[in-house]
């Protein structure tokens, strides 16, 4: 199963994902790592560096899964972070995505 890396942007707290082009706001644009080890390595090498540069807070690697042809977070917590509150579809990233 593949993995991605998320964090909260320091300035506004918004959830961001690591991509080859830096940090992006949507999971669809996130870089996918083939396994946990690769994700952990990127976390240490790249995400931690940006954390030290005070761009973001709490970077973490998490598992992905495929559902209905779409990539989403395997665990509900990360899925909610990637989409927004399930009780407010008008807010968070899902509001833009929909």
């Amino acid at each position, binding site marked *: 199963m593949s993995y991605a890396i998320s964090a909260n942007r320091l300035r506004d*707290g918004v*959830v961001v994902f690591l991509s080859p082009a830096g940090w992006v706001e949507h999971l669809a644009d996130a870089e996918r790592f083939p396994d946990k080890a690769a994700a952990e390595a990127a976390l240490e090498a790249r995400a931690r560096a940006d954390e030290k540069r005070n761009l973001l807070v709490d970077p973490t690697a998490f598992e992905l899964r495929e559902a209905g042809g779409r990539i989403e977070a395997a665990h509900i917590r990360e899925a909610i972070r990637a989409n927004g509150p399930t009780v407010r579809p008008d807010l968070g990233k899902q509001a833009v995505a929909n």
Partner: protein
Amino acid sequence: MYRYDEFDAGFVADRVAAFREQVGRRLSGEMTEEQFRPHRLMNGLYLQLHAYMLRVAIPYGTLNSRQMRKLAHIARRYDKGYGHFTTRQNLQYNWPTLADTPAILDELASVEMHAIQTSGNCIRNVTADHFAGAAGDEIEDPRPYAEILRQWSSIHPEFSFLPRKFKIAVTGAPKDRAAVQTHDIGYQIVRNEAGETGFAVYVGGGQGRTPMVAVKIREFLAKEDLLAYTQAIVRVYNLEGRRDNKYKARIKILVHEKGLEWMTQSVEAEFAAAAREFIELPSAEIERIKAYFAPPTFAARGTDGYKARRQTDPRFAAFAATNIMAHRQPGYGSLTISLKPIGGIPGDASAEQMDVVAELAERYGHDEIRVSHEQNLILPHVALDDVPTVYDVLRVNGLATANAGLISDIIACPGLDYCSLATARSIPVAQRISERFGEGERAREIGELKIKISGCINACGHHHVGHIGILGLERKGVETYQITLGGSGDETCSVGTITGPGFLSEEVVDAIERVVDRYLAVRTSKDEDFLTAYRRVGMAPFKDALYETNRGADI
């Protein structure tokens, strides 16, 4: 109404200035997150799942219209147009940016508000009965004492770094609406045989991982000793409380491990030894603070319009029956504005709704608004003849749900939809239960029933003291819900008992319905409410109802 004296205003202004500087240094990279986090938390700013969250203190839940309008303005300008009223009588903004926070705190300070004491191991903001100063059964308004405690504790260096957070609640009526027995210290105003008023003192209550009902360590404490006695309790705790284990650090663990007798003796010894003259509360000071809470002058008002509308409009009559509470002043009532629309998010209010409430408070409510720990708003002083007008305005603004105290008046914490500590969602469960039972005939037939839902063991949703409590957990990546029955946060305080195996999200509403149906079947009459019936018949019949069909998953 209390206003900041100059000292307080200066204190708050200094704190905002200091925080602005800290935010600047954090954003420029001079401070690491580790260094910054304690400052952030001391100013009520958390980092949650989607964004930062700012928790604004509303001491003892009292607001005026100017403050409510400011909260609405902040919601619009710096957030996403709404706020969430919490079980701690606070307001939370779910989307502020770090960069904006100092400006928000400035805005709050301009209406004598702040976010201090909403976080950290200090004495948190003091809570009180939301019907204080209005309730028909009240001995004395508890808020002056809550305020005295707040002023005294907010700047007390000795108590800024306690083993854990510390919560105090004060109630002034025999009917405990402030859940004082679930707090680290609970003060209940009582009258002694000589006819003097003072406090019964409860210590060591709490929810969270290890729920406990407080023990009474004193029957009667004279008012002038309020601070000296509080200091004695906090000192014993500060000295003896465990700092080695976060989960054992609350005063409830100390009380539990050492026992009632030890606790009483230790506090009394500390109390006797303290140099009382420095912290004795002179009655002049009590009177000075009380003056800020002096009741408004109530013009004599009739009730003809109110009665007539009750007779002709069944929806209004239903609203009046649940949402209007008896006032100490004839011709007046306290009006609960339910923030629990059927299927809605408990405790959320839009900026527009906040403005509407401010307007109504100003025109019809002596400019007073309360926030209840049950996540509703209250206009404590409304002339009954004005209630029809107020109701009509509330109705067009989605604020006239007639369910205060009924099954759909559910407390729910933000849960996994917002909270980074959550193990499961709580709001969607509340929404589905609310839709199942509604606010109509069925809900009224069921009568008083408090359902409380938490999204993790921290119990911000007070599930331990719900008549029906629901705790959201995670099992193997799946949200599951544990049900407790028989909890109560009032003067008959008790911690609920777990029914047995938990339920999946799609099962939990049916499970609640089976519990409710069983209650309807066992009650002696409509006058026997859920809690009374449960206490009479015990867990067995409910367990049967829940598990007879084996629908409880084995988790």
